[in-house]
């Protein structure tokens, strides 16, 4: 008998406690973000944006790509298609630019004044970026440094199929020159699946290159064969010890 009334009392009291919570919540401000209007407003006024390291759509600075194909090899779904070709004899491309990435995902691109790929604790990394500004940062805040490299290959085809891409970001991490990066674009739907195959290769960046003088050509040739001999010797050594 007592359990009967205790039941009724428990029911009514817990219901009233629950009702009080929902009533209180009525007066709290809403957490709705009025997408897309509020989102575009915030973007325009720079009030609150997407975080810096966001993994959105891929983009590549073609002038810095050396055609190492590391991104194509590591992609889990094989959505990057690369075809390279050797340059004509004597033509050289510009070196790639250096990149410094900090731990809060800020990226500086330009000419590395002080610092190396091996980050020594206690030093300062200095870089002058493409607009001429000087940036520096203590090495504790630096995540990685990529020095400039020589470009030896011409990219005939660099296609990324974004309809296959799973946005894992592995390709951006293994890029030797840090030229492949993920932007903050995440709204790029199209009406046609074929238009999600992005063609990044740009033949126009190889136009207008002239061959070097013959002396430098000979020196280049000598260095190149020397380099090949050393590489073969190293491979033979590795195979013997393995």
């Amino acid at each position: 008998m007592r359990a009967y009334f205790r039941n009724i009392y428990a029911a009514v009291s817990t219901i009233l406690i629950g009702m009080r919570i929902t009533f209180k919540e009525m007066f709290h401000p809403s957490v709705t973000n009025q997408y897309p209007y509020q989102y575009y407003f915030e973007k325009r006024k720079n009030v609150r944006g997407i975080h810096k390291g966001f993994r959105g759509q891929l983009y590549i600075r073609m002038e810095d790509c050396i055609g190492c194909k590391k991104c194509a090899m590591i992609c889990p779904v094989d959505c990057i298609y690369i075809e390279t070709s050797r340059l004509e004899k004597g033509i050289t491309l510009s070196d790639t630019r250096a990149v410094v990435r900090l731990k809060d995902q800020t990226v500086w691109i330009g000419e590395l004044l002080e610092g190396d790929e091996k980050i020594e604790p206690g030093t300062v990394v200095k870089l002058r970026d493409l607009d001429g500004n000087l940036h520096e940062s203590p090495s504790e805040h630096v995540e990685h440094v990529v020095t400039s490299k020589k470009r030896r290959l011409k990219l005939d085809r660099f296609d990324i199929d974004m309809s296959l891409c799973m946005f894992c970001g592995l390709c951006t991490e293994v890029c030797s020159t840090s030229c492949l990066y993920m932007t903050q674009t995440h709204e790029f739907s199209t009406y046609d699946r074929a238009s999600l195959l992005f063609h990044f290769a740009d033949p126009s960046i190889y136009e207008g290159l002239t061959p070097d003088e013959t002396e430098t050509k000979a020196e280049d040739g000598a260095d190149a064969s020397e380099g090949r001999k050393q590489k073969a010797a190293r491979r033979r050594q590795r195979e013997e010890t393995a």
Partner: protein
Amino acid sequence: MELLSSLIFMLVIAAALLGFVMLLALILVLAERKVSAYMQDRVGPRRVGPFGSLQTIADAIKLLLKEDIISLQADRKLFILAPYLVFVSSFAVFAAIPFGRNLIASDINIGILYIMAISSVVVLGIIMAGWASNSKWALLGAMRSAAQMVSYEIPLALSILSVIMLVGSLRMQDIVGAQSGGLFSAQNRWILLDNPFTFLAFFIYFISALSEVNRTPFDLPEAESELVAGFHTEYSGMRFALFFLAEYANMFAVSAIAVTLFLGGWSGILPGYTFLNGVPGFVIKVSVLVFVIMWLRWTLPRLRVDQLMSVCWKYLIPIAFFNLIGVGVWILIFD
């Protein structure tokens, strides 16, 4: 001639009432969406019209334009008849609700009995809908709903009986008249505060009414998570809209009856023309009750069907009987 003119008069009033009910359903759907949104830390409809006021009209137009799907194996005639039956019986209740001193569509002398009888026809409509859909889910929902509604009519009737015993008449305007003294007078008080037993009767009525309208925590027939959509799974377009509108009209009707029976109807707090008087007062009181119904929906989980039945038969009905006897004894002793 007399007959014709009175017939036309009745038709005009019926049309006005229908218009009112449609408008009501419109406002109530929007109110529910806004209230639920604010309770859940979001904003409700905002774009269609100022503060989303035209949202229901947009939804109604969308539903009108939808394809009318009737499955081949469904019982066609019953399938088409069911929503109309549900809507008409929910709507017919409004004929006997007193909105003001002279604002009642039809002041029959068995007002409250008529209301209880007509609102039972909704069960027929629901069973028809479940059966005619020829779908196991719909059938289950309809069976549950029928059991639920039929069972909860008993405590409903018992709590109404206590009011009728106090007033002595079934006529709606008489019941309101018996509360014309307002909140504080010694005689002719609002029936809610007349008697500790009628206070309890109000809550019994409220809970049974929640169940009659199929609202949480008793909304098992239309439980979205379990039976997809219960007895109106197979309905689309305007037929579904009719079920939907009928539910909101029913909600208002049930609150209006609660206000008439227990909270003084259109009489104010003090006798004469004062605060909470007349049609505005009536509407305010009904809105408060409707808000409480919505509040309960967004707070509480659902009861299972056998728990629903046990609440009715083991808790509400004994308490309602005891209540009835209490009211009778009180009247005997004190009046």
